[in-house]
């Protein structure tokens, strides 16, 4: 194995172990914030040590031991400090005995990952701090890696994480599995955070962002772990399927210059067959289990696209039917926008334009660039070149995404040049 491959292997192993080790250390010391810091230090120590001396026989035990020692050192120095402070007042106080360092290496609770996820995605946290804390405490990423992934200074990310831990402390959650009722209520927040991590990675995988940690692979890995723990939950399976069926198109989504390529123009030979197969298998498994949720439906739509050998083979009728179901479940104008695309593909662009008119009155989306982009596309289908150019340009003015803007400007330029 090359040095690089073995470093990668160690990193992968550490990320898998991170939540298990953290769970064990929290159980022993009952302090989430301090345990999280100690585990982070143990992970960093392991990268150095293992790459030189090889992975120890019991890697999990090694990490627990290093993190526990770190916790004990902190405890001892705190006690010593307090003792110094009190020395004058209370002479003769003895140093409190340190907790036993007898490691129960065999006890390991796979549910720890789930308990940690529920903690990190606690409603007391803002979305961005829940994302950061999840990646560190459950994903085992370093603060530096997370900071680079989100393009903010490391000090800022460190502060965001420490405040998140503070909020958890204040909210008084203990390291226990939430009751079934609480789980039902809070699982959507956990899935949403995983979904956002995936999107952050997926949408930024183009061009200049080569130094970003693979957030989408990380999200898939974490969701896979949750699926392993809650295999009967259809929305967990649905989310994992959605990620896989979307990630499958990653290679085809941008060209060598980092330009976006729309679904209809992608080279489908580049799609990842294995991810598509797994996504569809997961999705099929959920169908027998009753009512479909948002992630399952989105995954089903992604699957219809992925199953079409050519863009013109896409079963738009089925996609439209799935959007009809989604629309009944959620009052999200983005659903209506996407449904309009399906309507246009099935019944023609005029019908699509009619549907867009209802969105012009919806303040949540009326000024969103995607409304202009879709309208431009319909106008182009109708042969209204000037109208299409106008809306492509307006969409380009409204987006805050560089690759998207470049794509939209190029669409307007393409229409102008074809004369």
């Amino acid at each position, binding site marked *: 194995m090359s040095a690089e491959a073995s470093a990668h292997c160690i990193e992968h192993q550490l990320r898998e172990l991170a939540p298990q080790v953290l769970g064990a250390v929290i159980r022993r010391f009952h302090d989430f914030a301090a345990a999280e810091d100690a585990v982070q230090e143990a992970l960093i120590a392991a990268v150095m040590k293992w790459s030189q001396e090889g992975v120890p026989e019991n890697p999990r035990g090694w990490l627990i031991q290093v993190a526990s020692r770190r916790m004990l050192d902190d405890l001892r120095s705190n006690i010593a400090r307090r003792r110094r402070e009190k020395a004058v007042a209370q002479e003769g106080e003895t140093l409190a005995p340190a907790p036993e360092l007898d490691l129960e290496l065999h006890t390991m609770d796979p549910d720890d990952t789930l308990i940690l996820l529920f903690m990190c995605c606690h409603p007391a946290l803002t*979305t961005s701090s829940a994302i950061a804390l999840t990646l560190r405490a459950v994903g085992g990423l370093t603060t530096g890696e997370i900071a680079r992934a989100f393009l903010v200074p490391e000090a*800022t990310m*460190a*502060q*965001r994480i420490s*405040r998140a831990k503070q909020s958890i402390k204040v909210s008084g959650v203990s390291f226990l599995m939430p009751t079934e009722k609480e789980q039902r209520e809070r699982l959507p927040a956990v899935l949403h955070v995983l979904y956002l991590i995936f999107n952050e990675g997926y949408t930024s995988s183009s061009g200049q962002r080569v130094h970003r940690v693979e957030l989408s692979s990380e999200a898939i890995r974490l969701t896979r772990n949750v699926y392993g723990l809650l295999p009967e939950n259809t929305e967990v399976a649905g989310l994992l399927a959605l990620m896989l069926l979307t990630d499958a198109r990653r290679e085809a989504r941008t060209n060598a210059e980092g330009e976006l390529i729309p679904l209809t123009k992608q080279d489908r030979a580049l799609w990842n067959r294995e991810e598509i197969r797994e996504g569809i298998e997961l999705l099929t498994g959920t169908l027998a289990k009753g009512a479909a949720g948002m992630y399952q439906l989105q995954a089903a739509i992604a699957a219809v696209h992925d199953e079409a050998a050519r863009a013109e083979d896409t079963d738009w009728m089925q996609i439209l039917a799935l959007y009809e179901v989604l629309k009944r479940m959620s009052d999200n104008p983005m659903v209506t926008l996407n449904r309009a695309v399906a309507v246009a593909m099935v019944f023609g662009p005029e019908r699509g334009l009619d549907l867009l008119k209802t969105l012009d009155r919806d303040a949540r989306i009326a000024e969103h660039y995607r409304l202009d982009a879709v309208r431009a596309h319909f106008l182009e289908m109708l042969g209204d070149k000037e109208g299409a150019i106008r809306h492509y340009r307006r969409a380009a003015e409204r987006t805050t*995404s*560089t690759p998207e803007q470049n794509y939209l400007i190029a669409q307007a330029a393409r229409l102008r040049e074809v004369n």
Partner: protein
Amino acid sequence: MKYMLMMNTMKAGQGVPAWPKKDLQAHVAFMMKFVKQLQESGELVAAEGLAFPDQAKVVRAGKDGLPITDGVFPESKEFLAGYWIVDVDSPERAYALAAQASAAPGIGGEPLNMPIEVRAVMSCPPPEML
């Protein structure tokens, strides 16, 4: 999502404002505290104050590619005095921070209520949300 908050309050030729020392100190202390607050909330990406516009130059490349500088500006021209780049959860949060900066104390400790321009920083594509 990242936003740049810009303080476009400097005019050419005005020089240092003739504030009482106490008011100037209060203003500087406010600005330092604001940056510290952004640091502690985990929202600060970058912040800089810029030198006075008296030494500012506008540079263009000539036909030979060499710089041609221009340093004479109409008195009405506004200059960037400083900026903050923040990473926040919503545009509303960026507006709230801008309002906070806008109310920095001026003469007699009165809020300046200066205009702060809030601009989204271009980023990667937004999620293909449904």
